């Protein structure tokens, strides 16, 4: 049954609204007990009413805030015209993964931050509209994740004899693979884990980004003729040099920021202390929330402390709640204003009962006789004068030592680059932190080797990784077109 769509009067009224149309969401009480998606997505009616708020600016500031330069007024106009597939095509001129970006982009600091309406009221909900369009296209069976229509797809054969190897399968690599396959290159994508998708599969939880959506987009890239080989660790199973020996003429490295940092405080190796990567990988990639049907275990106990306040920390805290933990707190040294996580994620976490222990920093983890986490010793902090970064520096308050009783600690203070490839590839230069040094278009110190995404920038965002992939794919195409390589 189709609901009646908004009338002209309703659209006019909606145009005046100072607020975004709210996102239909699962009730907090219900969602705390499941891993189903929290944000349910706009209905067609919601989308039309929200699209009505867009002023179709001639000079669209929003577009400048999008790292991949999506023609936002144009796609929203298509929505107004109820040409949702047309809207999807418009987005896909620039982005290969709209169903993903529409869900996880930090829009408030990108496109929506610059929306003209945002100056006085809430900006247009660009991300929600993007997601609506992408989901619509998927539901219509018209999406292959790449913007190529189904006829072209089924007859896809590489038209050039240049073979390109793409390492890793996160958003950067998926973008490179998709773009180059569309240009006719024979692309092989190598992933170390047993499933492609990178952080989209092992890190970001099901309740924020369903596996089904990610795998749909990956299937689209497969259908473009990209060969995906899982269970191959480049640098170990095959080295970068061996890829060239095997006849690949260019290599893209999109290996991400997959090395978890710990705080270096006493007690971090006690049982019950996880890195966020371990915690989330067990639950997302290995589906520990379905133990023992799935055989990978996870243990949370009653009280969980998550160290850090970024998106990763929010994901870990919300996951812990869903696994049954009664008291989950975020422990963070600065104040709410400095929390790096997206506002929406913090709100969702709070709704789900996650507590924020701000201006608090752990200095030691104590365990029981059997080596299990028992308490987290912390200091209280206050904010002093602004430091070089312009943020007010947290200063420990003397004598403020206190303990939290905990059963589990999740360390979510950041990730660095995995050194495996730089350690095994001659002539590939990395900086002090271990990130591969690459130019504007992903070119590295090794001819024919390109890199992009978190491995170059350090932990960043999906859309930035995708943007880097786009540039690198274009650069690889130029590199292979300009010279003959043998």
């Amino acid at each position: 049954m189709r609901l009646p769509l908004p009338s002209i009067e309703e659209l006019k009224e909606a145009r005046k609204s100072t607020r975004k149309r709210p996102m239909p969401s699962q009730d907090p009480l219900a969602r705390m007990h499941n891993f189903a998606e929290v944000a349910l997505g706009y209905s067609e009616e919601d989308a039309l009413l929200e699209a009505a708020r867009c002023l179709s600016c001639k000079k669209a500031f929003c577009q400048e805030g999008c790292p991949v330069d999506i023609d936002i007024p144009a796609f929203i106009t298509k929505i107004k015209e109820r040409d949702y597939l047309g809207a999807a095509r418009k987005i896909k001129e620039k982005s290969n993964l709209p169903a993903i970006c529409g869900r996880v982009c930090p829009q408030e600091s990108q496109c929506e931050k610059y929306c003209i309406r945002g100056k006085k009221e809430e900006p247009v909900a660009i991300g929600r509209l993007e997601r609506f369009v992408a989901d619509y296209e998927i539901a219509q069976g018209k999406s292959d994740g790449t913007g190529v229509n189904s006829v072209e797809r089924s007859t896809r054969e590489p038209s050039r004899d240049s073979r390109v190897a793409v390492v890793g399968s996160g958003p950067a690599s998926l973008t490179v693979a998709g773009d180059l396959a569309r240009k006719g290159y024979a692309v092989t994508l190598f992933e170390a884990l047993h499933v492609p998708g990178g952080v989209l599969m092992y890190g970001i939880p099901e309740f924020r980004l369903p596996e089904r959506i990610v795998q749909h987009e990956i299937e689209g890239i497969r259908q473009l003729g990209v060969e995906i080989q899982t269970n191959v660790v480049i640098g170990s199973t095959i080295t970068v040099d061996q890829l060239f020996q095997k006849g690949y003429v260019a290599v893209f490295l999109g290996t991400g920021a997959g090395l978890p940092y710990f705080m270096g405080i006493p007690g971090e190796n006690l049982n019950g202390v996880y890195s966020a990567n371990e915690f989330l990988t067990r639950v997302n990639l290995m589906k520990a929330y379905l133990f023992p049907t799935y055989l990978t275990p996870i243990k949370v106990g009653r009280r969980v402390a998550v160290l850090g306040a970024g998106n990763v920390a929010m994901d870990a805290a919300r996951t812990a709640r869903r696994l049954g933990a009664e008291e989950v707190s975020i422990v963070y040294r600065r104040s709410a204003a400095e929390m790096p996580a997206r506002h929406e994620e913090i709100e969702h976490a709070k709704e789900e009962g996650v507590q924020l222990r701000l201006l608090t920093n752990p200095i030691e983890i104590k365990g029981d006789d059997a080596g299990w986490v028992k308490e987290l010793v912390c200091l209280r902090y206050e904010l002093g004068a602004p430091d070089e970064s312009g943020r007010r520096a947290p200063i420990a308050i003397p004598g403020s030592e206190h303990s939290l009783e905990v059963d589990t600690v999740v360390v979510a203070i950041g990730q660095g680059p995995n050194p495996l490839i730089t350690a095994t590839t001659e002539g590939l230069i990395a900086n002090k932190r271990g990130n591969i040094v690459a130019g504007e278009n992903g070119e590295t110190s090794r001819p024919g080797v390109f890199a992009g995404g978190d491995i170059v920038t350090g932990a960043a965002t999906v859309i930035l990784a995708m943007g880097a992939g786009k540039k690198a794919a274009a650069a690889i195409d130029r590199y292979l077109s300009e010279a003959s390589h043998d």
Partner: protein
Amino acid sequence: MYRIVRKEVLAPGLKRFDVEAPLVARSARAGQFIILRLDEWGERIPLTIADLDPEQGTVTIIFQEVGKSTQLLGQLEEGEYIRDFVGPLGRPSHISQLGRVVMIGGGVGIAPIHPIAREMKRAGNEVISILGARNRQLLILEEEMKQASTEVLITTDDGSYGRKGLVTKVLQELIIHRSPINLVVSIGPLVMMEAVCRVTQAAGIKTMVSLNPIMVDGTGMCGACRVQVGAETRFACVDGPEFDGHLVDWKLARQRAQMFVAEEKQALQEHEERRKGGLGGCGCHCHQ
């Protein structure tokens, strides 16, 4: 999908598979391991590479059925497939010519010590191997170890074969009568490796051990495999699995092995109940 081209039961609960994995077979070296996942529901389990055949493209694994995952693995037959099989992971053993070296393998630990012994002998060392098992039936790879060593000494806990007692007793005698010993490599249960290290530390003999903490990805991404070596926390899957045994924090290693004991029991119990209940019997998911 990775085909099991050969299956052999070495002893009760101890099985050997040759698995078709040509890329791994071509790149692996002694001391490295693989991670496999049985099927869609499986956990990622690490197993040492016990042997390789680069021509045939096969990798040999030898495993002990200790819990649900390894029991399910043991039920697979020749010609059947393992869903995922990735490697080689970890750093290879450091092989060099040192003179007289002692290789100590306990239980299923004899499997990973075998390729190291063979390489050590090839590199021109005098290789004395001490093999320990609970009883004669559980002693594996005796012939292969004889080929790979200059000399093999055997102990069993119950005295059913070789000397009665623990490997450390034989080691102590070697230290007294066969000095100098330039290196000891010990692989087996944690308690055995720790006991060996106590003996060699007193005698001042460098000792390498292969640690097998709980792992998930095996590529350095999760930190589940943390071990404390000297003042540093290391990830065994990428920094190891071999470490200087005299620097290992054994208490911590023992503790961390216990992290999921309750869950492991739960998985096993459920598995055994299903078997007893005649629900398919094979414990696979198609009978759920």
